[in-house]
């Protein structure tokens, strides 16, 4: 009963001070602060070899970043005292926070504080928190409690954490990278000079044909000897020429329906004329002229 009474008195006293502080001035509240002493850090590797020990004096920070790799064990000990009474206290919030410099994610390390203000914390990288990935982190010690209005956010130093796994890629709505279709390359054409040369080469057999025919004494004697059949035969040959010219036009611009209608006309003509012309030729042969 008496204890609770004291408690209430104490609490209300604290309230009073708090109120006073806030009313009088927001700046001058250093009476209810904390002091951190004997801060020591130690890193041991997975095979229990002590890699590093550092002691830091509050409020200065570590000069060099500390490397932490998979399997390492980080231990931190320190004591918290009331600034005024120099007695050890046990604050409500005493947390070591690793803040990623890349992703702004925060990972807490719980600090166990005893009544006398002795505190210890441990980060075992063998069972590291799941959101701790490779990268640069800053380690802050945050001390705060309800009775004190001067909390501490103390930057201890930088840690470079190196673990084999990396953070999963989160799906986030937003613009996606552009995709451009890669077209199949156009067919490569040979140099035109080759094409032109082969045009000429393909025409070369003509020289042979003309040459050989002259050599063989090819003649057009019937042209003069049988003038009676000339008009029919010539008309026949001209229809053949017309058909070939029609084919050329078909290649250049005509469509198949136009071509076929023209072709049917020409072919009837060619058939009739051809019959007459070739019977004339047969006549020459039967007369023994050929």
């Amino acid at each position, binding site marked *: 009963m008496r204890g609770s009474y004291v408690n209430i008195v104490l609490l209300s006293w604290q309230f009073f001070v*708090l109120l006073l502080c*806030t009313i009088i001035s*927001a700046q001058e*509240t250093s009476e209810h602060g904390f002091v951190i002493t004997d801060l020591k850090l130690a890193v041991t590797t997975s095979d229990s070899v002590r890699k590093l020990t550092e002691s830091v004096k509050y409020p200065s920070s570590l000069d060099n970043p500390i490397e932490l790799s998979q399997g390492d064990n980080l231990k931190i000990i320190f004591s918290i005292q009331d600034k005024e009474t120099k007695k050890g206290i*046990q604050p*409500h*919030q005493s*947390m070591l*926070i690793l*803040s990623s410099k890349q992703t702004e*994610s*925060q990972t*807490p390390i*719980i600090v166990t*504080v005893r009544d006398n203000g002795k505190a210890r914390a441990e980060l075992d990288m063998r069972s590291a928190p799941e959101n701790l990935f490779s990268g640069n982190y800053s380690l802050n010690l945050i001390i*705060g409690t*309800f009775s*004190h*209005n001067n*909390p501490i*956010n103390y930057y201890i130093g930088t840690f470079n954490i190196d673990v084999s796994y990396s953070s999963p890629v*989160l799906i986030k*709505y937003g*613009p*996606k*990278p*552009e*995709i*451009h*279709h890669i*077209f*199949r390359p156009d067919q490569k*054409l*040979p140099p035109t000079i080759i*094409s*032109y040369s*082969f*045009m000429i*080469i*393909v*025409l070369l*057999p*003509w020289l042979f044909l003309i040459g050989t*025919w002259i050599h063989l*004494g*090819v*003649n*057009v*004697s*019937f042209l003069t*000897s049988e003038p009676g059949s000339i008009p029919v*035969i010539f008309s026949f*040959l001209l229809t*053949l020429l017309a058909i*070939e010219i029609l*084919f050329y036009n078909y290649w250049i611009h005509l469509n198949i329906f136009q071509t076929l209608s023209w072709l049917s006309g020409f072919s009837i003509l060619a058939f009739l004329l051809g019959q007459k012309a070739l019977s004339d*030729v047969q006549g020459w042969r*039967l007369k*023994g002229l*050929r």
Partner: protein
Amino acid sequence: MRRILCIVVLVFAVLILVESKSTTGSRVLVLLDNEDDKKLYTRFFGSLEGRDYIVTYKTVTNLNPSIELFSYGERVFDHFINFAQKKDKTDSITPTSLINFVNDGGNILLAVSSEITENIRNFARELDIEFDERDTFVIDHFNYNVSDDGKHTLLVSSNFINNEAILSKEVVEGPPVLFRGIGHKVGSVPLLTKVLWANDTAYSYETKDDQVVDQEPLVIGNNIGLISTLQARNNARVTLVGSLEFFSDRFFDSSVQKLKSSESYPKSGNEAFANDLTKWTLQEKGVLRVTSRLHHKDDEYEQLDTYRIKDNFTYTIEISEYVNDHWQAFNGNDVQLELIMLDPYIRVNLTALPTNEHQEHHSRKYKAHVQLPDVYGVFTLKVNYKRPGYTYIVDTTTITIRHFRHNEYPRFISAAYPYYTGAASMGTGFLLFCFIWIFNKDAGKSTAEKKKIN
């Protein structure tokens, strides 16, 4: 006929006039613990009623009339605002009924305190949001208001999301807000958006005396969500606020001054924030719609169903945004078009065309020129616009891309000249041969031979 049309138009015009500002409906159900609680949030409900909502108030303690979100399978409210902290006795507000409500397109605003019920917690879990244990508070020894009661839970926060679809510029740049309540952990689902979160030094824990933090809190620092939203795939919106007092008249009118900070504000940002938040939740802002889409060849204006491979192609889409109670041109500039056949073949950014200032525009045109791929098949033109804060646009059009027709291939290629020559040579050779064959007289043939043949 004309007259009937006129009447129909008139009726619609009247209907639109009495419509609330929301794009999805005006029937709101507000659930409270008891009737008197209404007096705590007069400003908030006042603004709601001022925006032409038909608000129905019900309490969890009163069994009659019962609380039903659905009647005969039909949704009877468009929006649901829950301020109740106690379990409702009819047990009709269950996680399942809330999920059904959201699946049916209803919007939900849930304000909870540290006395959160299991039903609400389970519903939040369905959304990948984990509230901390009952009786925990978000505590921050660094950022509490001067009027705090010694628990350091009356937080001052200005960690607003900078997203104009949800919070207007005035709110983001305005005074900080007050928050006292429970924190939550936001999952990684892309449908979720944190709107307000705690400072780096905050943590979520019980506030009993003589107790220290010996277990790792559920969330700490800026991972603590104070207000988070979810926009479901059907564009229904759910907002979870970890503080009921956030909406109270007391917080609306309270002054804000952080401890040990010279900055003080005579009035907190809560009222403006709450207004924007409810406007967003009840689909009064951040709502997008596609008004038209058009595609054609670059040098034509007719929309076709079938295009040829490698055609030069233009796609235009018009998008409106609902802001300040009217549809206006959307201002986003990251709209993308995808051309998909199983996989996206092409994804391009659409260019936002400027709107004419002197003319009133209800939508903005977005345009892209692409060359269609050299693959034929049925393709989907997809504008898949999903951005936090805005309703999702998934607009698809199907087109067919066909092959070159036989007469569309390149002709008279230099590489084929020798072949053309060869064919021409054969034709000419044939004619000449015919001529020679007919008229040639075999001079060397002997008469004897001829006789033999004949």
